[in-house]
């Protein structure tokens, strides 16, 4: 059943949200976001199957490309952050507040 794929997609998406919300390590947060994108991709592909329409595949492709671009920049930022503090705890980056 396609809806099962969608359920899985939703579950992964929500797990991604949980990862973002509950973790302080920049890597984990970043990978959780990647997880959410993957969940969406699963959605696209399964819906593509549902509609028998390959647009979903293209969409998933695009999302992967974006994810790759994002990953490149995110990793650069991570390196930058690590250079500053030697640590990747998001909570130590809270100089800007109030």
């Amino acid at each position, binding site marked *: 059943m396609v809806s099962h794929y*969608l359920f899985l*997609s939703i579950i992964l*998406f929500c797990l*991604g949200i949980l990862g*973002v919300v509950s973790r302080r390590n*920049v890597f984990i*947060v*970043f990978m959780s*976001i990647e997880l*959410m*994108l993957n*969940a*969406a991709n699963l*959605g*696209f592909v399964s*819906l593509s199957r*549902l*509609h028998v*329409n390959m*647009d*979903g595949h293209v*969409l998933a492709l*695009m*999302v992967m490309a*974006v994810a790759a*671009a*994002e990953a490149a*920049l*995110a990793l650069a*930022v991570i390196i*930058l*952050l690590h*250079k*500053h*503090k030697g640590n990747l705890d*998001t909570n130590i*980056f*809270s*100089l*800007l*507040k*109030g």
Partner: protein
Amino acid sequence: MQDIMAILPLVATITGAILVMLAAAFESFRKEGISILGIGLFAFAFFVQLTVENGPPIAPYETMFNGMLVTSTFTKVAGLIILGCGFFSALASQTYFNQNEGFVLEHYCMMLFAASGMLLLTMAAELITLFIALEIMSLAIYTLIAADRRSVLRSEAVLKYLMLGAFAGAFFVMGSVFIYAGAQSTKFADIGRVIGESGFLTNPALVGGSLLIVVALLFKAAAFPFHAWVVDVYDGAPVPVTGFMATAVKTAVFAVFANFLVINGQLQEGWVSYLFYISVLTMFVGNLIAIGQNSLKRMLAASGIVHSGYLIIALVAINSEQFTGSTILFYLAAYAVSTLGIFAALSYLGGEGEKRHSFDDFNGLAKVRPYSAACIAIFLLSMAGIPPTAGFMGKFYIIAGAFKGGYITLGALGIVSSILSMWYYLRLIIAMYFREPEEDFEVGELTLAPLGTFVLALAVFAISFIPVAI
């Protein structure tokens, strides 16, 4: 031919960006040259955009691009605002980096890339195109923020922006999934057709999908409760970049937001009641954040949240049958002019390393630099909506639009919010004019930013005379 014309500004911008990128690779090009090149390219793109013929909405390269782009007067004017913002931000950058470190040669290239992303954003008529445009814009802006690698504040700002931006992006993609589920397509035209055929509220997938997309757009627009990043990111970014973000990004996001909402009247109607509350909360929360700030940049960021609230009022009051978006664009222009003006002024008044940043640092500015202070006062008054500035007319049109749409309460609350906002705008004017200067800052030689400030100050008045129909 019309097709070429329609996306010519986009082409110009992208080409310009690549040009600057290449130029940056040559050691012979130094800061000044690159700056002039960047500014010139923005000006060029602006004039290209200006000369593009406007008419009824057209889809350039419809066969080739499959109707994924749409241009209209709305996108044209939005593009003009964006490129104008880029131009003045570039002016501000030139001066800013005269006295601040952390300049990278790719600065203007990134600005142009961001601008091209924004232009795409305004024209996008398909969800994934929109997403990619959004990401082009965002990635460029991330780079702009954190270009000064030695500053931990910049890195922190980019961390927050990147993480939350990507998070919101994920929501957007998930939203697209559901839209795709409901409409079998991600093109606005198809979505509109599906809604027209089967209704919006009867199609759960569309409702859910639009929820996630709206969330992502609200995040970019800094609406409550997706606003928290704004203050910190604006604070952490270099002044000209903050100005660019506060104006150009907002313009692009609201343009695409409006485009998305007017896909079909039912879609907009379905969201009105939620946007209603969101706009109210956004305005008031923004005010409450702003009142507590001591740093000027943070205050301006928070006031940006408030202005998003006003713009959401305009979105609520959109008449999707005869959408012109003139109210939104006018407000955006008015807001952009005054905000850019302040940031342009800040970029040369800030001194070395943005030493002048808190309200107290501006004490007695009017005695030291009367013209700058007068310009800043004009910008603040415009943001506060005091006539005869553009900000006043913008607010007037928004309130009028809200009333006309029957949202009397919303309009009235908008008024209340602007009363509240007087408080912190006045605070800066009071600091500049009525307090004694404590410490004199050395400010670098006069360069382009003061000129930009002055032009913008004039624009504040000039824009208010542009007639707008509601």
